[in-house]
């Protein structure tokens, strides 16, 4: 079997010791990845972590400085043309020609995949139907909603029936409904046998879609595993509550500092305070109620919950997932998610567990 079908036994994507620097910025400092056929790998990390650099190397847009990357058995440097024949790429912004219609966009991509005109037309219609764009097929893409543009972009990446699909932050900037729609599409592609590498800043997205998750920060893989494995690394259950009076956050942190296994984490903007309590579960919850009552701190929504990938990220990196990983790096602005996006948070943060 392995002699007959050697390529199949290799992973669809294999990355070993990949490095890339831009001047003094070490975007990738030696990452390893392996993605089996027909599975989804989520590459998780803040802006500037190196996710996009990795995708650009794997899609032959950028040459690595060192290490090796193989896609469908083809080296991305030496056999770039063969790699390009087996991949699809959908990026962070919709790479479509806005002045043209959805149909024209797909037909042109089809022609560039060297389909004949009738084949290109047929393929465009197939994809427009599959992605629920057939009613808008003859409207200029600039009049599409954000979600429709992103669907058209994804459709364009599928024109050549790629075996491996790279999705660089496929839902960034989408409204929640479009996001769910995109998730459904990604699931159905995987069901059809496509291998997918997707980058995301959204932990719930990785949790929802990925078979395996790799966490990248500052150009290094700092954790890898299934969502469950990563969560178990976050130190078990979490006690969490909100302090409505922001002045009392410090008191709350002090009150619960001894009930858990690690340091409490407090968000000065939302007033959310959390602490990992390992397997102490309900005992820790009772302790928390007593301590907070004794300290006379009013709280809302005191809960004991399973760890989320947010907690994992915090544990692994010491900063929240949507913070800018690199001080002074380009920021995209706060996105208003829980614990999201403020560098001041790192300074206030009571916790630095390692």
């Amino acid at each position, binding site marked *: 079997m392995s002699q007959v079908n050697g*390529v199949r036994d290799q992973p669809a994507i294999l990355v070993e010791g990949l490095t890339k620097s831009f001047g003094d910025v070490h975007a990738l400092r030696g990452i390893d990845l392996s993605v089996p056929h027909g599975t989804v790998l989520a590459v998780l990390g803040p802006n500037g972590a190196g996710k996009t650099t990795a995708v*650009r190397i794997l*899609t*032959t*847009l*950028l040459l690595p400085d060192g290490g090796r990357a193989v896609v*469908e*058995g*083809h080296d991305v440097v030496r056999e770039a*043309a*063969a790699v*390009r*024949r*087996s*991949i699809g*790429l959908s*990026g*962070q*912004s*919709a*790479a*479509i*020609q806005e*002045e*043209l219609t959805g149909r*024209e966009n797909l037909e*042109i*991509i089809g*022609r*560039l*995949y*060297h*389909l*004949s005109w009738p*084949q290109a037309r047929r*393929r465009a219609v197939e994809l427009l139907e599959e992605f629920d764009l057939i009613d808008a097929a003859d409207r*200029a893409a600039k009049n599409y909603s954000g979600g429709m543009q992103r669907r058209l972009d994804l459709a*364009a*990446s599928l024109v*050549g*029936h*790629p*075996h491996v699909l790279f999705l660089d932050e496929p839902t960034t900037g989408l409204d929640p409904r479009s996001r769910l729609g995109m998730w459904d599409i990604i699931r159905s592609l995987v069901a059809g046998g496509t291998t997918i590498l997707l980058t995301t800043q959204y932990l719930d997205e990785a949790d929802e879609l990925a078979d395996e998750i790799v966490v990248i920060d500052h150009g290094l893989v700092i954790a890898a595993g299934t969502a469950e494995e990563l969560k178990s690394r976050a130190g078990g259950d979490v006690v969490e509550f909100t302090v409505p009076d922001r002045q009392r956050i410090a008191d709350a942190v002090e009150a619960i500092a001894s009930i858990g296994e690690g340091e409490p984490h407090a968000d000065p903007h939302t007033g959310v305070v959390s602490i990992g309590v390992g397997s102490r579960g309900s005992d820790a919850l009772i302790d928390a109620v007593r301590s907070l009552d004794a300290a006379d701190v009013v709280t809302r929504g005191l809960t004991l919950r399973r760890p989320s990938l947010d907690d994992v990220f915090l544990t692994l990196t010491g900063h929240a997932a949507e913070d800018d990983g690199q001080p002074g790096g380009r920021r995209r602005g706060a996105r208003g998610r829980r614990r999201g996006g403020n560098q001041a948070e790192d300074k206030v943060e009571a916790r630095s567990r390692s």
Partner: protein
Amino acid sequence: MTAIAEHAGPVSSPSRRVQAVWAVSDTLTITRRNLLVWTRVPAYLVFTVVQPVIFVLLFRYVFGGAIPVHTVGGYVNYLIPGITAQTAAFATFGTAIALAIELKKGVIDRLRSMPMARSAVLAGRLVADTGRMTVTILIIIGVGYAVGFRFDNGFVPAVAMIVLAIVFGVAICCISAFTGLAIGDEESVQAFGLIWLFPLTFLSSAFVPIATMPGWLQAFANNQPVTYVVNTMRALALGGPVWPSLWKSAVWLIGIFVVFVPLAVRAYRRAS
């Protein structure tokens, strides 16, 4: 369907001949796409068609009367070759802006990640923009005829003048392509990427005789490529010695191609 599956299947390297055919077909596909976009954006059409016409009318009827020339047929005959060259150069604004937009939006990334000929994006852009430029040039000459311009030197030199205008435009187009890719930002390209075209075209023999300029300006205007090209075009259109300015034009144009084609290709390869 089977043919589609064939394309998707891995993966034998196509022969060199097939690759060459694909390079041409990809270039034509990109050309077609760019021309389609051009017809869909009214602003582009205005820029390519209406603005040059306004320029012709402005210089012919407003400024022209104040500009003394010793040309058979008067200022309109002096003007049309000059304004044709200027229009060809200005038409390349679109090249730089379009490439900057495509780069920023990730369109070029998408195309470069596909198994198409890598040369086709630049080549298709150049072919489409040359087509666009040719339309503009013909409109200028048409309007010129309507307001009194006449070719005085026979048919073949007239065609040669148009060809020279196109070659000149393509040369500037290469500079624009490089500029657009190197700057990679639409607003910056629009603001200062091609601002050098204004002094280059106006401080030449395109609109006024250089002898009317102050001495220090004449030194520049007499020795720059637009003047050589315009003088050659004028000689071709109206008669007179072609050779002295033609060889200087040729040297300049070849120089521009030799420098900027590799620069544009390199900027495209590195584009990120």
